[in-house]
């Protein structure tokens, strides 16, 4: 029995090597997000003009920036903020999107029409510009970056959930629940919603990567977090001006870590999709 479980696990892993690799990477990122501040070799905010703009060395693996701050420490500490923004933004749009999508899909009729109309309007916006506009209008704080990212992700969740609910609305198990006297809200919350959750996990994972890129993009055009906070996007944006003068490490390392994080979420999303529904695999 034990051996079969083991061999089965081994089979699953061997079939999804990349996914497990990505999962490992994800765990590392989570570790950095939790313990980054504790294990960073230097204070990420402490400047030291004596060692400004030093190339990577044994003392500073990723070099130092224009204020002599350790780039490695800043990259490590930034993990928490970047992942935090992505997680909160995705969670927010997932919650609101689920509520809207479930209502629209389950009730149909005018709630559906109103919600769909609003979502259509949102879709017609150039999304990145909408995010820029929102952050510019509300002020560039972390909270507002989260709101803006959540809003531009909203159509995705609402639409996917709506169509998933629509498919299952008339399904046997829903009928059964209805006949046993469950109310609409209870059916939605207890029976329909848990059913579409696995599919949503895939979207959440893919979306995380996009949320990180989005926040970084906002930082790049100057609508990101306030200095001296360490954040990957802003570090790349700041470092970008130093590339030509030869200080490539300031942009390269945060950029590479940013890329790896997004890469990891994308692979994870793919892998989850395979596990949940191999036929969906693309």
């Amino acid at each position: 029995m034990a051996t079969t479980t083991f061999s089965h696990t081994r089979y699953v892993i061997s079939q999804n090597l990349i996914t497990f690799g990505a999962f490992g990477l994800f765990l590392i990122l989570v570790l950095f997000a939790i313990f980054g501040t504790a294990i960073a070799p230097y204070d990420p905010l402490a400047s030291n003009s004596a060692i400004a703009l030093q190339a990577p060395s044994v003392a500073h693996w990723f070099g130092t920036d224009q204020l002599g701050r350790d780039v490695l420490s800043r990259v490590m500490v930034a993990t928490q903020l970047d992942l935090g923004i992505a997680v909160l933004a995705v969670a927010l749009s997932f919650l609101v999107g689920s509520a809207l999508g479930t209502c629209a899909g389950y009730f149909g009729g005018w709630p559906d029409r109103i919600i769909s109309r609003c979502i259509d309007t949102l879709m017609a916006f150039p999304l990145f510009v909408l995010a820029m506009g929102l952050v510019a209008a509300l002020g560039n704080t972390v909270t507002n970056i989260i709101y803006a990212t959540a809003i531009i992700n909203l159509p995705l969740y609402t639409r996917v959930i709506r169509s998933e609910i629509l498919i299952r609305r008339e399904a046997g198990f829903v009928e059964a629940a209805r006949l046993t006297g469950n109310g609409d809200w209870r059916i939605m919350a207890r029976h329909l919603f848990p059913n579409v959750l696995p599919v949503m996990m895939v979207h959440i994972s893919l979306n995380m990567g996009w949320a990180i890129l989005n926040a970084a993009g906002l930082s790049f055009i100057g609508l990101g977090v306030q200095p001296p906070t360490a954040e990957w996007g802003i570090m790349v944006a700041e470092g970008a001006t130093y590339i030509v003068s030869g200080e490539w490490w300031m942009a390269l390392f945060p950029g590479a870590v940013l890329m790896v994080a997004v890469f990891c979420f994308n692979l994870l999303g793919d892998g989850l999709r395979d596990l949940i529904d191999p036929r969906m695999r693309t």
Partner: protein
Amino acid sequence: MRRRRLIKTGMSLAAGITLANGLKACGSAPAPTDSAADAPAAAGGATDATLTVVQGGGFPNSLDLHRVGTNRPAYGVSWAIYDRLMTFGTKTLADGSVSYDYTVLEPELAESWEIAEDGLSVTFNLRKDATFHDGAPVTANDVKWSFDRAVSIGGFPTFQMKAGALESPDQFEVVDDNTFKVTFLTAGNKLTMIDMAVPIPVIINSELVKPHLTTEDPWGAEWLNSNDAGSGAYTIGEFKPNERITLTRFDDWKSGPLPAIQEVILLDVPEAGNRRALLEKGDIDINYDLSEKDQQELADLDAFTVTSVPIENCLYSIDMHTNPELAGAANPFADVKVRQAVAYATPYDAIMATALYDQAVPMYGTGKAEPDAIDWPQPSPYKTDMEKAKALMAESGYPDGFETTLAFDMGTKEWGEPAVVLIQESLAELGITVNIEKVPSANFRSVLVEKSRPMIINNFGGWLNYPDYFFFYAYHGQDATFNGSSYKNPEMDKKIEAALASEPGKPEYDENVKGFIAMAWEEMPRVPLVQPKLGVAMQPNISGYQYWFHRQLDFRQLVKA
């Protein structure tokens, strides 16, 4: 000593320019030499060279600098395609670079001028051979229309004309086709003549514009925005906002020596790194308005001609809001001890080294409370001294510190961001918790106007190079936009107004200027950091660069070998 030489220079100027008498010398500049002899009269004459230029700080957005919203880079293009009645002379600075000289007025469209004996008017004699780009002769009617436009159109041009007491069309009179008379509101305003040589009073081809005038647009702003109606040394070739502008030499230009460069191509390259790469790869001739870091590193490369000139009458500073209340709460910076403590806690040397790469003139650390010169900007007595700062804090009403916000303009982030981070770190030692607020450029102007932040990084510079002019905008109780501290002190106002009414060389002028500078050091509503430099890097075959107060390139003197 310096003063006497200045006055002597003033005396030797063209007849009747009384206002140019003995103006103060710039802090870092030596006494000007006799300018006319030194002016590089476009050595070598006209060539068929093409000059390619990229610049920081934005891209020209209009050909009409009277329009609402015309940006500063547009002054450079306007400077080339339009003429003014007069221009300034030039002088050679200590490091060999050439700068305009605001004590010397030279002819441009006007070949001569006389100030009336009563000092209440000036009569300009226009060049008879000057023509606009369409071949029409430049007449006094065009000059009057152009001056009327500047004082009537509203916004910045009208404001700038007012600074020289040029306020109403009634002051401008056409005597005959080639004679134009300006009546002064009062005698002896030292700014009036100079104000007619700044970029604003350009001479526009009025006959060319008139068909495009409408009742909603009586001054042809829409047409002039993208069309050339000038008589300047260059005509507009292509004008594509945010992309490229080409200028072609006007070979019939009579108002000065014909420029050497045949065609100028201005390209919009928003990324500073790309601008530098283009220069290093030899794809462009000039990279203008460099960041401090590029000034330093390009100079070190030794492959380019790099010139950095301190920007006259300009100061980077920390401004602290001085009103007792701000946003309904008590404002710690109303306490002068707190302000002095901040001035002692500011990490000047670190800012100078890491934020400005030593490419600026330090404005701190003399240790002398009483100024001994009337130069402006001049270094403050303060230097970094944590012990003194802590002592002052202990004496203040906030011995345990407080929390505050320091706002800066995103447009200045290259030096502003490292500077505020360093300030934040230093003030933490005094128990002052500083939150940094990076404000997009458009909003920063509102921050200045509203005076809604306890601390800001300010970078005011005045065109007209007088300490009283600077103080009128930065320290006077009229609370102008650039008085970032919202500082109001009747005693200070009295001194500033007295200096404004006087002129350099008179004893009461010196006394008042020294008086208000001493008061600024005592009260410390703003902590001067540095006087910035304007940097340009050119390929080695380019010469003839001159620094101008409007901070734009003057293509007319440049030579490409």
